[in-house]
Every structure is written in structure tokens, then in C-alpha cells.
């Protein structure tokens, strides 16, 4: 064989490959909003008890006695009998359209339903019934990044439904655009920012009457004879001295981008996009703003123990922060809170303190447990880091730890904080 035909064969084979194209497909899951108009008249007829259903998009959680209340974002509330934490049982599903927050006093559950505050008698958890409704007390709100507003003159709610759309696009195989933090933040918006976080084994909510326990990202709090609710830029008080007959009591406008409320002793700690507000609540009917602790733009649940407030800031929230950190703030003088120290975190979400143990959710990075006795050396006293879970919110009940994440609701035996033992798990989308 001579070399010429060889060369020809060789070149021919090359031609076959000549048209090689790189194939790069980018898959994105994007949040899409579609605007819907709902009739208030109809919404107000829809509160009812249904048979238990699966968790799909769990929101905030609330604990009262042996019952757990887990919000299904915009749909209602799962009522769960948790007398045996190793095997929680769904009791019923309380349908409340537009529900996001929960608070319980004695046998009355307070829930928001878009613009209304609904009081539900849960004496018999398997068939709760609506006992009172305060109309048009909330004017706007947000679920998963979608906004709703009430139009009182026509009696309608304009809401944005959220869908997650998966799309695949062809890209050029090299686009390496770093996400701009500002946009990144605005976007990820919902990463369930308004998702229940949970906090405080120091059980701040009680005092006078028996209430349950909410999370560090709750917008509802009960203290003495009042139910405190925060909206985007206001604090609204309801007098619940007769739990069955809540009365719209007072509205205080301040700040903006308000997210969370955490009552502690005779103070209210309010987390907003611009910082933390501290209200003196020694007269529960008349909270007075003492100070605001301003930090960067980032929102943040707050929990408090003694004179120290634990504030987390994270990126990827509605507040578009650029920091991922845990701040310890000295609030012994509530009129002038002072930073003790900042600690770098990965992506902190809800938190809960059972002094000296601090539980901190790190989103997809799991759950971290710190001993915070040494306020200047929190990072040196990390007791444990559980990575094999997705953690958004946590409530410490002393011996038990309730944790909620994207994939489900977990309960742990936390008698030894270094070694959490899984008691039970309710996976999202599955019955137990």
C-alpha cells in the first residue's frame, strides 16, 4: 500500500469530525408569577376542616402543647398530634386560603387569611371551627415572593401565583457570569424568606393565658392580652383578653420591609430588611420604639437570650443582603444596642436558642450547633455540623428539636446537642 491513498483516507476521516459542535444545555428552574384576582366574598366562605393531606410546601410551624401546626403556604394548616414525637399523626387539615402565620392562645388559633384575621376554635382539633373574623386588617403581603394586595372598594384580592418552571436552553459552554449579589438576592426572594423559621426555647410568648411557641421568622406573637402582628411597615395589635373575640386594637406604622417579631421579656424585637427594631413593651397595649439597630440590607430572624440578641443575615433573600453572618448584639441597654461580634456563616436561616446551645439553620448546608457561652468565641465552640439535611427552620423545645427543610419536617432528640437522634420525619409529598 502506498502512502498517498493512506493520506487521502486520513484526510477523509478528518472531514467526518470537522463539523463537531459542542452541545451545552443549561437547565434552570425559574419562578414565574401569574396574577389572579380572588373574590373576598368567596374566600370568606372557604375556611373549613378537611381530611389530612400531604405536605407540599410547608411554611411556618407553631407548637402548642402536644399539637403541631404546620402551615401549608397559602393553603391552610396541618394539625398534627405530636404526643409521641417518634410517630406524629396528622389529625386534620384546616383549610384557610391565604394563610401564612399562626398563633394560638388557649383553644383559639389565630391565622391570617389574606386581608383577614381568623380566629378558629381548636378545642376539638379534628374538627376546628371558625369563631370570629376581623375583616381587612392586613392590606398586603407576600408568599414565596409573590405579592398580594387587597382592594377594599371592590372586595377583591389581587394575588400572584407562583409556579416553578423548568426550562432548558442551549448555551455557549463557557458563560461564567458570576451572579450579581443584588440581583441574586432579589431573585431568590422567596427562598421561603417568609417561611416559618422557628425559635426560642426560652418560650417568650407565654405570660398570661397559655400560648404556644412560634419561630424566629414568625409575624405573629402573643404577649399578655395582645396578639402582635407585623406587616410590611406596621405593627398591629389585637386585644385577645377574650380569646374568642379578638378586637382590632392599635396600629403603629414604622420602618419598612418588616419580617419578623420576637417578644422577649418586656420587649419586642422586630427584624426588618434594614435592621432590628426594639420596642419597649412594658405597657403591652402601647409598645414604644426604643431604638433600631441598623446594619446592611439583609433580613434576619432575631432570637434573644438575656442581654444578647442573635441576629442572622443572609444573602438570597428579599432583602438582598451581601452578608452571610451571625451577629451577636448587646441589648442590655435597649435604647442603644451595641454589636458584640460578627461571625461568618454560609447561608443562615432560622435559629433557635436553648442557652447555651444555639441551633442555626444553614439552608442546604445543614444545621449547625454552637455553644454560645463565650460570646467572643462562638466560632470556636461549634459543637456539631449536620450536613445531610436541608435546614430552614428550627424550634428547640429543650429535649426535642423540630426542624423543617425543603424535603420535610424532622424531629430530633436533642438531649445531647452534639449527637442529635432522629425521632421521626415527615417527608414532603408523602403521608405518614
Amino acid at each position: 500500500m502506498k502512502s498517498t491513498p493512506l493520506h487521502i483516507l486520513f484526510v477523509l476521516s478528518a472531514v467526518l469530525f470537522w463539523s463537531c459542535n459542542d452541545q451545552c444545555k443549561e437547565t434552570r428552574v425559574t419562578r414565574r408569577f401569574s396574577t389572579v384576582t380572588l373574590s373576598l366574598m368567596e374566600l370568606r366562605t372557604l375556611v373549613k376542616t378537611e381530611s389530612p393531606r400531604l405536605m407540599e410546601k410547608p411554611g411556618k410551624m407553631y407548637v402548642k402543647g402536644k399539637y403541631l401546626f404546620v402551615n401549608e403556604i397559602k393553603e391552610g394548616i396541618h394539625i398534627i398530634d405530636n404526643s409521641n414525637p417518634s410517630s406524629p399523626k396528622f389529625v386534620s387539615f384546616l383549610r384557610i386560603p391565604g394563610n401564612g402565620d399562626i398563633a394560638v392562645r388557649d383553644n383559639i388559633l389565630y391565622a391570617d387569611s389574606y386581608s383577614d384575621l381568623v380566629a378558629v376554635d381548636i378545642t376539638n382539633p379534628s374538627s376546628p371551627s371558625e369563631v370570629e373574623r376581623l375583616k381587612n386588617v392586613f392590606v398586603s403581603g407576600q408568599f414565596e415572593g409573590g405579592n398580594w394586595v387587597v382592594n377594599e372598594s371592590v372586595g377583591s384580592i389581587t394575588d400572584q401565583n407562583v409556579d416553578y418552571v423548568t426550562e432548558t436552553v442551549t448555551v455557549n459552554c463557557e458563560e461564567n457570569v458570576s451572579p450579581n449579589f443584588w440581583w441574586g438576592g432579589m431573585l431568590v426572594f422567596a427562598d421561603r424568606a417568609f417561611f416559618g423559621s422557628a425559635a426560642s426555647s426560652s418560650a417568650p410568648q407565654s405570660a398570661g393565658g397559655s400560648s404556644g411557641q412560634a419561630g424566629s421568622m414568625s409575624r405573629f406573637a402573643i404577649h399578655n392580652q395582645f396578639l402582635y402582628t407585623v406587616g410590611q411597615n406596621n405593627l398591629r395589635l389585637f386585644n385577645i383578653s377574650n380569646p374568642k373575640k379578638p378586637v382590632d386594637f392599635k396600629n403603629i406604622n414604622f420602618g419598612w420591609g418588616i419580617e419578623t417579631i420576637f417578644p422577649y421579656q418586656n420587649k419586642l424585637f422586630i427584624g426588618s430588611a434594614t435592621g432590628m427594631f426594639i420596642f419597649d413593651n412594658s405597657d403591652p397595649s402601647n409598645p414604644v420604639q426604643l431604638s433600631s439597630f441598623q446594619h446592611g440590607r439583609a433580613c434576619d430572624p432575631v432570637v434573644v437570650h438575656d442581654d444578647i440578641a442573635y441576629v442572622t443575615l443572609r444573602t438570597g433573600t428579599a432583602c438582598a443582603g451581601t452578608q452571610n453572618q451571625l451577629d451577636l448584639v448587646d441589648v442590655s441597654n435597649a435604647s442603644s444596642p451595641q454589636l458584640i461580634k460578627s461571625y461568618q456563616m454560609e447561608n443562615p436561616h432560622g435559629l433557635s436558642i436553648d442557652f447555651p446551645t444555639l441551633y442555626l439553620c444553614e439552608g442546604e448546608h445543614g444545621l449547625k450547633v454552637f455553644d454560645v457561652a463565650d460570646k467572643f468565641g462562638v466560632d470556636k465552640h461549634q459543637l456539631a455540623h449536620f450536613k445531610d439535611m436541608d435546614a430552614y427552620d428550627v424550634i428547640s423545645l429543650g429535649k426535642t428539636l423540630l426542624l423543617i427543610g425543603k424535603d420535610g419536617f424532622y424531629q430530633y432528640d436533642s438531649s445531647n446537642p452534639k449527637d442529635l437522634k432522629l425521632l421521626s420525619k415527615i417527608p414532603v409529598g408523602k403521608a405518614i
Partner: protein
Amino acid sequence: MRRKILFLIGLTLAGASLRAQELLDTKRKFYVNQTEFGILAGRVKYPNLYNGNQEQVDNKFSLTVQTFNGIQIDERFATGITVGMDWYKAALLNPVAVGFRYNLTKKSPVKLFATADVGYGFTWFHDDSEGFDTKGGLMINPGLGLKYGRKNGAAFTIAMTYKRQEARVNKPVLWDQTERSEERIYNRLALRLGMSF
């Protein structure tokens, strides 16, 4: 996946070294090295986001180097391990592969040979940007080459092969996204020059 491939490579080595023992008895040369460098030429067609999603075609050239170390099983056939480095624009990959070389012609001064490498591209030396996570993937690289040189001596080689390299990138999310990832397949014409002995 990686484990399987490493296992396969191990097997090949073990097999080849056994065979080498037999070959030691004959006088034939049994160790083969072929070191090459070249370019990976390709194109990419995509809708350009910054230009009204009009379709755009870009040419792509990446540098590649690789070295094949193997055992001459018989006069035509050699097998061994190919280790290389490919500088793709957004990924630096290190393929580790089982390699085969087969002489299609025996006698002519210019020999035509077939070449094939199958393995996995690793990202050992790739440094991701903040938020990105690049993972390697399967690599196959069959083709033809010409060898100019003395029989069993040092030779100059030129090879034209098709290279397919997979990779996967997890990316930080942008506007209103909750997840973002990319499946990459590099389809390239690899043009290589090299030496073998």
C-alpha cells in the same frame, strides 16, 4: 462511575504487564510511549442572549496534551494508559483513559494507525469561580493517525481524532431561579502532533 473506570484501567495494566512478561522472552520492543500535543477544534451554536437571542456560531480552539504509555502486545497492537490535560475555556480537565493503538499497515514507511482512548475527565486542577461547581465526565477519543519513522524506532506522529468529553456544572442561581445547572458535551476534532518511541 469513576471507580469503574479506574478499575478498568487497573485491569488493563495488570493484563498488559502479564503479557509483557511473555514478551520479555522475545526480543521485540514492548514499551511504547506516545506523547502528543495539539488543538481541540470545535464550534458551538447558541442563541445569544445579548443579541435578541439570535443564533450565533463561535469557533472554539482548546489546547490539549496527552501521553500514552503502554505495552506492545504484538506487532500491530499496543495498549496502555493515556493521561492528558485539556484546557477548555471554562474547564480544565484531566482525562485518564485506557488507550489502544493499532497499526493498520505494516510495511510502508508511513504507517496508518488507529487510536482510541476511553476514560474519564477529572477536574483535579480546575479552579471553580465562586458558586460554580464543575464536575468531569466520560471521555471517548477514537481516530486515525499517521506515523513517520523507522520500524520500532522513534517516530513522528500526526493524529486526527474525534473527542467527546462530558462535564457537568452546577451554577449559582440568577434572577428568580431556584436551580441552575449545565450539561456539557464537548465534541471536538482533536488534531495532534507527537513523538512515539
